[in-house]
């Protein structure tokens, strides 16, 4: 359903059928909008016609050769000879069927509809005597080509990523699922931006309640403009008072399709290459689409590596603090001696030392994102050298800590989801404070707090830690390891459909019948 445009003032304009008059009405509405173009012309001196369109969002060639040319060059008799006898629908018929070479056209009589179409890049054609306006699709604007996504690079797998134009993004998904079961529903959100949002799902696989809930939540959004999928994410998630992302964000069409096949719902938003997938669960955020493309032994090993990365990025600095401050006896003696030797010159307690280094590292990382490319490299070299080498030599930090901090840094880059990585980056700091105050005991208590919080989270009714808690043994096949396609007959998660995207499953079901 296309929502009616919500206009600032009430347009009580009505189409009169007189082109000059109607054009004036358009000109009042589009006052001071230099990007709106009006083109009046005569058709064989019999009738006046006019085009209204947005320059920069239409293809001029199409207008010139497929709209203007056929109209002006049309057979004179069409309009002149029996003009008096022609009624409106005849004229509409002639234009649609004998003159214009456009596959997408439709008639409108309400101003708000027409304005909406003109603003989204369609051409409006006004003709004398008609109280309706023909809207012709001639959309064409500058856009990026389909490129490899910057944030989710893979070694093996398609190199296509979404871009900012929603129609291209839709086609990228459709190309991978050539079935009428793939549904795309249209919504408009944003009082001023009128952003197009497309909800996509696979009928027969998805739980219809989930689709309704998604539509319901998006329908409730009241905001002036949507500039990025982050707006929508924040407005539809279950618990916005949480560090953890509860939806999956991706730039990769193959990942969207993979999730649709598992019964999830995709939300494509115009003007952003990031597509939202709901419901999002923790373990899914730890998966990369490449897991499914590589050999499954390798993929399973990499998945387990990621679990260690999660623990490392959360706990390594705090364990360092706890062990060196409170539980030195747990460190093997030889190691303890070398740590103590290197800490000898350091004037700070371990906590301050670690805090300084972590903050320095985080700043370096943030600076790397913002800086222009050529400078970025210089900064990272200088930063790495200064912080790594010089700080140790100057006796400000100890060298074991540099190892700890860099390992933590590397571990937090292993996260396939940048959003989840951010959550853990931030959680590291309360963890460090707890470790500095209570040692291992503090770490345990903080972990319990964290777990309780995470266990309370739900994404569209699905517990965040599915299938680990509540436990679902069959689901673990696709969480801890990535089982072979031959072995995955059911699918992960709490979702209603029990079918995984398994090519063999279909066959098996058919044989059973």
């Amino acid at each position, binding site marked *: 359903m296309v929502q009616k445009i919500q206009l600032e003032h009430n347009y009580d304009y009505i189409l009169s059928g007189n082109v000059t008059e109607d054009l004036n009405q358009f000109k009042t509405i589009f006052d001071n909008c230099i990007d709106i173009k009006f083109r009046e012309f005569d058709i064989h001196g019999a009738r006046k016609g006019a085009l209204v369109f947005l320059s920069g969002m239409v293809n001029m060639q199409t207008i010139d050769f497929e709209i203007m040319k056929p109209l002006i060059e049309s057979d004179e008799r069409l309009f002149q000879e029996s003009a008096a006898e022609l009624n409106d629908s005849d004229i509409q018929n002639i234009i649609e069927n004998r003159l214009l070479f456009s596959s997408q056209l439709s008639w409108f009589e309400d101003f708000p509809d027409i304005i909406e179409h003109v603003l989204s890049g369609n051409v409006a054609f006004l003709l004398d005597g008609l109280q309706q306006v023909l809207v012709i699709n001639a959309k064409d604007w500058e856009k990026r080509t389909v490129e490899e996504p910057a944030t989710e690079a893979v070694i093996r797998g398609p190199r296509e990523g979404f871009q900012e134009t929603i129609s291209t993004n839709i086609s990228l998904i459709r190309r991978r699922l050539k079935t009428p079961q793939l549904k795309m529903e249209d919504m408009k959100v944003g009082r001023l931006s009128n952003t197009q949002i497309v909800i996509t799902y696979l009928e027969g696989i998805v739980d219809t309640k989930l689709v309704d809930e998604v539509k319901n939540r998006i329908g409730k959004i009241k905001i002036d403009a949507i500039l990025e999928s982050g707006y929508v994410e924040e407005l539809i998630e279950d618990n916005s008072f949480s560090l953890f992302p509860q939806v999956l964000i991706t730039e990769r069409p193959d990942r969207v399709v993979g999730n649709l096949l598992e019964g999830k719902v995709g939300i494509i938003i115009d003007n952003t290459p990031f597509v939202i997938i709901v419901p999002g669960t923790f373990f899914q955020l730890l998966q990369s689409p490449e897991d499914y493309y590589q050999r499954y032994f390798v993929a399973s090993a990499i998945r387990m590596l990621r679990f260690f990365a999660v623990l490392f990025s959360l706990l390594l600095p705090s364990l360092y603090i706890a062990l060196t401050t409170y539980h030195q006896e747990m460190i093997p003696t030889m190691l303890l001696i070398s740590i103590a030797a290197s800490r000898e010159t350091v004037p700070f307690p371990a906590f301050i030392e670690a805090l300084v280094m972590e903050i320095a590292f985080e700043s370096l990382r943030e600076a790397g994102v913002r800086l222009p490319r050529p400078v970025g490299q210089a900064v990272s070299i200088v930063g790495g050298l200064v912080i790594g080498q010089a700080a140790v030599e100057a006796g400000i930090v100890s060298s074991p800590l540099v190892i700890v901090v860099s390992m933590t840094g590397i571990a937090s880059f292993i996260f396939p989801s940048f959003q989840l990585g951010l959550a853990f980056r931030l959680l590291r700091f309360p963890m460090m404070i707890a470790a500095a105050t209570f040692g291992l*005991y503090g770490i345990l208590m903080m972990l319990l707090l964290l*777990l309780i919080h995470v*266990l*309370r989270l739900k994404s569209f009714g699905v*517990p965040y830690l599915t299938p680990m808690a509540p436990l679902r043994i069959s689901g673990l096949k696709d969480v801890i390891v990535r089982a072979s396609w031959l072995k995955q007959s059911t699918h992960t998660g709490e979702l209603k459909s029990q079918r995984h995207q398994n090519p063999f499953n279909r066959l098996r079901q058919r044989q059973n019948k």
Partner: protein
Amino acid sequence: MEIISRHQLLTISIIYQIGTTIIFGFASGAGRDSWLAVLISTCLGTAVVWIYTRITHFNPGLTYIECYPAQFGKLLGTPIAWLHPLLFLYISGRIVADIKNLVPTTILPGTPPWVILLFFMLVISYGLFAGIEVMGKLTEIILPIILLIYLIEVILIFSSGVVHFDNLSPLLDKGWGRIWEVVWPLGIIQSFGESLALALVWTLMNERKRVGRTMIISSLFAGLFIAFTDALAVAVYGEEIFKRATYPMYALIQAISVSDFITQLDATGVIYFCFMAFLKTYIYLFATIRSIQKLTYSNSSRVFIFPVVLIALFMGLTMAPNVVEHIAVVQKVIPYNPIYLSLMIVFPVLLFLVSWIRNKSGTAAS
């Protein structure tokens, strides 16, 4: 309404029943025969747990606490029912006091106990607000981890070369006397009798009919786990040290020493203990709050969380002046205390008989 699954109840019960014995040991008075004493306690204790589950089975729709007024009449049943939250609260206070005694002396020597306990109670309150369902999921995740760590620990102990099975024999050289001494009544009260608090959770399970089986499985599992650990501790330390140690199981972890590299893992033992104590306190306080809520016919249990948590914290801080006295109470006072025995054994048996007879005659009449 919160609902927990059968698997979640199982994991909660196992962790709850193993509980703090992971540090304190179980039936250490029986010396080298302690593992046998544990097995006997397990058999008897499982029977007691089975009686509890039957009571709730005979009174469908009622929590364990509400069975007393329902079966014994308001006049007699209500006071008995009110004793339960008080007992639960007292025991949770005892566990808090355990934390107070153990943590500062072992891993945090400089930190004042009240700060440690405050943090502890803070996490528990958050857990109580989150509800039992979250706790079910929590144990579901943590139990496999605990068992894995335990397995590693056992392997490490064996590879430290300190296990001498000779320490376990001769079996029963001092007769059955000292076994019975620890089995009755302490062995039955500990872990198994304490499962009474879990009875308040049973009504929240989605498959009510399988509560009994689940509880029996968890009791047997916990019993075997404790018996094995006891035997291991005796094999490592010999009877005398095992009997005298304040924290025999804690000592077990200290015995680990593999090629001078993995040594002194005491802190991990304390961490274990803290988690077990966390869950036990949680269940006791949950049971307290839920019983009070049922007995006062309140709609919301949330108002009771803070008062109850504060009382437990206060009791934990003031319960015993020192560790020796605190431990002595477990061995000398609690087993012979009429409240413990009557609430955990005498009343349940009476209630079981009454419910059973009523149930039988009820079905016969209809």
